[in-house]
């Protein structure tokens, strides 16, 4: 009897793993196809789709597609643009949103409730519903730069950065987190004569590690994957981010190997980053749910 029971358990365990593995295959096969195809010449790439070879590094394997992709389009520039826009936006967002949340939670000031309520109300406005009028606004905004005062932000870095620095969700995440910190700590620091700047920098921010990670990861995902907005506001290649840069590969003769190389180039580093910080990524998504 005992052996039958344990056989049974072994079988059930095997079935469980079989189900888990089958689902894992469904989620991962397009990504494996992408990376493997990026090493193959076009003709082989298309022929391989008929068999398992599509997911294996077989046949005429080389890095030629990568070299050709760099020749066809300013790939380095696109990656630089995306990294710059994403990095600057994430940093400014963490700074301004945490400062605002600090003021909402710890500082008592006239207008606090009203402003916070208004900001949280913006959570129900999807970006897609304001993109078109925002395009009009962005085409008229003033900017003071090296050339002096100019009007119109189209084709620039700031048009991709500034509108996305502050958002309701990031402020909300910081507010929720700060509310759980002991308020006495802040008051005690104030009684001892610490300035507001010192309280923010030396008392609150050192405790804010988890929420900083959450906010940074969510903002990173949104910014790096931006498509609709840069598609509309950046026509010149000098400021194009990676997702819009893809259009280059669809002009004239389409080379699938190069496209796969480009896709791998802009995706694999993000996937590696994700696998490295997997727990933080998943915790950041989870935290939008539990408290939302």
């Amino acid at each position, binding site marked *: 009897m005992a052996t039958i029971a344990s056989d049974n358990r072994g079988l059930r*365990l095997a079935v469980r793993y079989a189900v*888990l593995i089958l689902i*894992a295959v469904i*989620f*991962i096969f*397009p990504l494996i*196809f*992408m990376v493997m195809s990026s090493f193959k010449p076009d003709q082989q790439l298309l*022929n391989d*789709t008929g068999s398992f070879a*599509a997911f294996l590094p077989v046949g005429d394997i080389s890095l030629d597609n990568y070299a050709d992709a760099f020749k066809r389009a300013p790939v380095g520039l696109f990656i630089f643009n995306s990294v710059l826009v994403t990095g600057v936006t994430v940093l400014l967002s963490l700074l*301004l949103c945490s400062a*605002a949340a600090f*003021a*909402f939670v710890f*500082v*008592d*000031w*006239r207008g606090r409730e009203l*402003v916070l309520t*208004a*900001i949280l109300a*913006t959570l*129900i406005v*999807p970006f*897609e*519903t*304001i*993109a*078109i*009028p*925002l*395009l009009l606004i962005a*085409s008229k905004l003033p900017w003071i730069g090296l050339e002096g005062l100019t009007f119109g932000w189209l084709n620039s870095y700031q048009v991709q950065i500034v*509108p*996305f620095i*502050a*958002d309701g969700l990031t*402020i909300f995440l910081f507010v929720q987190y700060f509310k759980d910190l002991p308020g006495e700590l*802040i*008051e005690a620091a*104030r009684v001892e004569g610490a300035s507001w700047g010192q309280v923010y920098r030396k008392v609150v921010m050192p405790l804010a590690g988890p929420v900083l990670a959450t906010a940074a990861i969510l903002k990173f*995902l949104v910014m790096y*994957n931006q*498509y*609709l907005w840069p598609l509309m506001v950046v026509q010149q290649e000098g400021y194009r981010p990676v997702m819009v840069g*893809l259009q280059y590969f669809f002009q004239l003769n389409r080379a699938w190997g190069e*496209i796969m190389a480009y*896709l791998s180039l*802009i*995706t694999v580093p993000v*996937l590696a980053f*994700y696998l490295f910080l*997997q727990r933080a990524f*998943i915790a950041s*998504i*989870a935290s*939008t*749910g539990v408290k*939302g």
Partner: protein
Amino acid sequence: MASKFTRSNRIGWLMAGPAALLIAVFVVLPFIFAIGLSFTNQRLISPNPTEFVGLANYEQLLGIGMLTLEPERDASGAVLRDADGAPKYPTLRSVTRNNPDLPQFAGMREWFSFQLGEHPTYVLARDVVFMKAIVNTFIFVLVVAPVQAGLALVLALLINQRLRGINLFRAIYFMPVVVSIVVVSLLWRFIYDGSSGLLNNLLGALSFGAFPKIDWLGNPSTALGAIIAMSIWQAVGFHMVIWLSGLQTISPSLYEAAAIEGSSKWQVFRYVTWPGLRNTAVLILIVITMQAFALFSQIDVMTGGGPLDSTQTIVFQAVERGYGKQDISGGSTISVILFVIVFSISLIQRYLTREKQ
């Protein structure tokens, strides 16, 4: 905790001001602009001054009419018939073009028709493409919201087991969420390709060649379904994680009690797990609905709204007009319509899922 140490109007505005100002300029202002512009004929660049046009933009997008055609009659009132004996009807064109008797149908086109009783009835729309975009978007939302939420829950329950290596599976299931939807859409063009697509090859192999090859994205009856399947594949991991965090808030003592009572697996799910997930369920439904209404990138990369407008969506139309045709007022009007839809649906969802006393 208001005391002289925590009270400071200057510091409050100084620290919250920059973020509040940015949100005012880049979220609130465009939102107000969207409403205002929808009553004008504003274009991105135009030599003519902007004019107030009232509800004309809304009428242009949403105008519909219904018309039952009467057969043509001769002078004596007898129905005219063609060679096969079927009654002869006037052409739709004679109604919608230069017909002073029926001015409300002027400029409309046929959306669809049906026959109830003797004569055919036509539903006419001023903007047939936009009507199709609304219908497609609703189909997308109505399929994606329940299916994606349900599959995400199944995955969360699978991942919530205590098994060696379960974190690896969780990481893999979540992977597509990290990848840009633009990249995903391009990859799936390969999967759906009509000649050498991976899906056709797989179905062909499984059925020993009996399954005919289908151009999934090029066929009006499969294109929207193909995009739905891919969208669920990409986003389901996101909601799996939210379900998972909901599952982990349920107290283990409840499961222990259920085990002592000898409950079946289904009973445990029905009376312990599911009640504990109520709030998570409401949140997930609202989030998926809001995301699904914003459907754009997949369409732009995979089909461009075709074939035969079978994958047109509301946001795709807003961008095509507001940006493509530089018709800011038309795009803004679509944006307002989208907002009203999303807002009403989330109100309805909140009402239907409210805590019952």
